[in-house]
C-alpha cells in the first residue's frame, strides 16, 4: 500500500514539475506496463487454455497442470545442460510432458471419469507426486532456462525489450494455431463435438477415448511450452507449479470454466492487472489479487466472461 501511494505521488510530482517530460514519462510507463501485461497474459493463456480445454471436453479439472508446467521447465533445463541446444531441448521436453499427460489420462483419469470429486483428489495427488519427483531428482534449487533474444525496440519513444515482444508474438501465433486447429481440422471438430455432448458424438462415430487422449496431450504440450517460455523470465523451483496452476485456475474462472475464448480474453486482462499490481504495489500481492478476482467473479457472475456472450448463466 505504501508503494502505491509513493508511486502515485511520484507521478504527480513529475507531472507537475516538467510539463511535457512528466506526461511522456507517465505514458511511457503505462505503455510499458500494458505491453508487459499482455506478454504475461499471452504466456498465461497458453497454460490456461489447456486447463480450460480439458475441463470443457471432459469435465475434469486437472489439478496436476501446474506440476506438468514445472516438469517441462526442469526437463528443458537438464536437456539444455546435456545438449547445449535450447530448441531441441524445449521440443523434447514438450514431447515428454505430453507423454506424461497421456499417461495421466490413460492410467488415472479415464477409469474414474464418473467421479468428479474423486478425480479432484486424484489429479491433486498426481500433481503432488510430480512436484515431489522434481524435488527429489533436482533438489531444492531455483532455475531459469537460458532462452534470450538480446536488444530492445523503440516505438514512439517507449523502449520495449525485444525478447518480450518475441514472446508475445510467439504465444499469439501458437494460440492462433490452436484456434485454427480446433475450428477447422477434423480432430478439432471431434473435440468440439465431445465438449457439446459426449454420447451424441460417440454415436456419430467419434472415437471418444482417442480424442480425450489427444486433448490431454495437446493441453500438456501447451502448458509445457508456457512453462519453458515463462522460465526465461521467472525463477522456478519444484513447488512453483502451484502458483501457475492458481493463475491458470483464476483465468479459467474469470473466463468461464471450459470456455477457451473466455480464457484467452481473461488471461490478457489478468496479465495487465498483474503487471500493474507488480509495479504499483508489490509482486508479493499477486496471489492475493488472483484470489480476490476468483471470489468476486464467483459472487457476481459465476459463469465468468463466457456468460457475456452466451447469455444467462
Amino acid at each position: 500500500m505504501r508503494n502505491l501511494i509513493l508511486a502515485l505521488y511520484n507521478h504527480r510530482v513529475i507531472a507537475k514539475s516538467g510539463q511535457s517530460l512528466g506526461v511522456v514519462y507517465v505514458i511511457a510507463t503505462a505503455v510499458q506496463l500494458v505491453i508487459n501485461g499482455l506478454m504475461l497474459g499471452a504466456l498465461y493463456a497458453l497454460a490456461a487454455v489447456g486447463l480450460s480445454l480439458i475441463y470443457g471436453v471432459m469435465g475434469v479439472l486437472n489439478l496436476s497442470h501446474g506440476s506438468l508446467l514445472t516438469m517441462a521447465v526442469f526437463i528443458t533445463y537438464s536437456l539444455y545442460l546435456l545438449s547445449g541446444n535450447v530448441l531441441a531441448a524445449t521440443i523434447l521436453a514438450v514431447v515428454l510432458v505430453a507423454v506424461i499427460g497421456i499417461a495421466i489420462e490413460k492410467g488415472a483419469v479415464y477409469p474414474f471419469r464418473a467421479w468428479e470429486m474423486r478425480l479432484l483428489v486424484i489429479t491433486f495427488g498426481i500433481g503432488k507426486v510430480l512436484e515431489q519427483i522434481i524435488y527429489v531428482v533436482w533438489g531444492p534449487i531455483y532455475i531459469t532456462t537460458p532462452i534470450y533474444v538480446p536488444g530492445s525496440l523503440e516505438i514512439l519513444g517507449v523502449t520495449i525489450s525485444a525478447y518480450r515482444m518475441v514472446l508475445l508474438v510467439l504465444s499469439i501465433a501458437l494460440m492462433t494455431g490452436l484456434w485454427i486447429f480446433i475450428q477447422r481440422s477434423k480432430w478439432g471438430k471431434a473435440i468440439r463435438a465431445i465438449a457439446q455432448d459426449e454420447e451424441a458424438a460417440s454415436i456419430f462415430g467419434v472415437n471418444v477415448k482417442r480424442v480425450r487422449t489427444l486433448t490431454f496431450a495437446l493441453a500438456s504440450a501447451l502448458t509445457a511450452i508456457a512453462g519453458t517460455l515463462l522460465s526465461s523470465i521467472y525463477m522456478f523451483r519444484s513447488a512453483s507449479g502451484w502458483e501457475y496452476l492458481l493463475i491458470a485456475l483464476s483465468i479459467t474462472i474469470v473466463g468461464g470454466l471450459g470456455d477457451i475464448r473466455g480464457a484467452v480474453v481473461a488471461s490478457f486482462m489478468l496479465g495487465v492487472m498483474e503487471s500493474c499490481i507488480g509495479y504499483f504495489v508489490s509482486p508479493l500481492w499477486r496471489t492475493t489479487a488472483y484470489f480476490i478476482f476468483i471470489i468476486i467473479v464467483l459472487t457476481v457472475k459465476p459463469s465468468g466472461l463466457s456468460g457475456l456472450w452466451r447469455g444467462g448463466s
Partner: protein
Amino acid sequence: MTSKARSGFRTTTLKLLTWLVPLAILALIPSLTENIYVIHILILANIYAIFAASWDLISGYTGQVSLGHALFFGGGGYVSAFLAMWYNVPPSICLLISGALMAIISLVVGVPCLRLSGPYLAIATLAFAEAFRSIVIALPHITRGDEGMPLRALILGTTPNYYASLVLMLVLVIIIYLIANRYFRLPFIAVRENEAAARASGINVTKYRLLAFTLSAFFAGIAGSFYAFYRMAITPEELSIDTSFMPLTMAVIGGMGTVTGPVLGAYILVVLTESLRVIIYRIRILIYAALTVAFITLMPGGILGALRGLAKRPSSLRSRSSEHPLLAALMGQGKSATRARAFAGFVVWSTYFLLFSL
C-alpha cells in the same frame, strides 16, 4: 438368551473393545515409555487426527473437496499467536476464539462457492490458502514473515501436553463423529450422493454444505491453535500446500467419510514418517502423495473400508474390483479369467505402483 441376541451382544462388545483397547493403550503410553520423542510424535498424531477428521467433515461427508485446509490450521495458529502475544488472552480462550474466527473466515469462501455445484470450492480454498500465505509473507512487520511468530506454551512439559492433546482430540473427534454420523448424517450424505435428488426432496443443499464447511473450519482452527501453542511458534509453512495435503492423505488412507478413518490414517502416517524420519525425510511427501494416489484409485474406502469389508464378507474386494480395470485384471475377474491374465494384471499393477512411488 437367544443366539441372535447373544451375537448382537458379542458384536457390541467387540465394537466397544475396538474403541477401548486403543484408547487404553494411548492413555497408558506415558507410563509405559520414558522416551519423550515417542510422546512428542503421538502429540503430533493427536493434533493431526483432529485436523484430518475436520477435513473429512466437509470433503468426506458432503463431497466438496477442500484443497486449502491449511488456511484454517495455520490461520488458527496465527490468530492465537496474535491474541496471546499482543492482548495476553488466556490460551484456553485463544483456542475457542481462533476456531470461531476461522469459522467466520470460512464463510468468505463458502458463501460464493458452495451455492454452485462443481469444483469451485476446491479452486477457491486452494487459492485462499496461498493468498493468505503470501499476505503473511508480504507483511513482515506484522507477522514477522518467514520467521514465524513465537507463542508462550499452553502447558509446560511433554506428558501434560500429551494428555491435553489426547483429551482435546477425544472430545473434538467425538463431537465431529456425532455431528457427522448422528445429527446431520442423512442430509450430508444425500447432498454428497445426489445433489439434484437432495434438492428435490426439500434439502437445502447450500445450507448443509455451508454448515459442514463452517464446522470443519472451526475444528481445524482449534487444531491449528493447539499446534501453535504446543510448538510455541507458527510459521507460513503451516499455511502451505504441503500442510493442506496432510489431512487429505490421512483421510484417503484411513477411509473418507467415516471420521474414525482419518483419525486412524493420522496415527499411521505420523508414526510411520516420524519413525522412518532419518531414512525417508526427503521423500516423505512423495510417499504421502504416492500413497494418496494409490489408495484413491485402488482402494477408495481406505484401510477402514477394507477392514470393514473383510469383517463383513471376505470376498468383498472381488466385488469392488469392477471399479478399476487394473484391479479387475489383478483379481483375475472377467469372462476369460485365466491365470495368465491375472499375472499380466499383476505386472501392470506393480509397474503402475512403482511408477508412482518411484
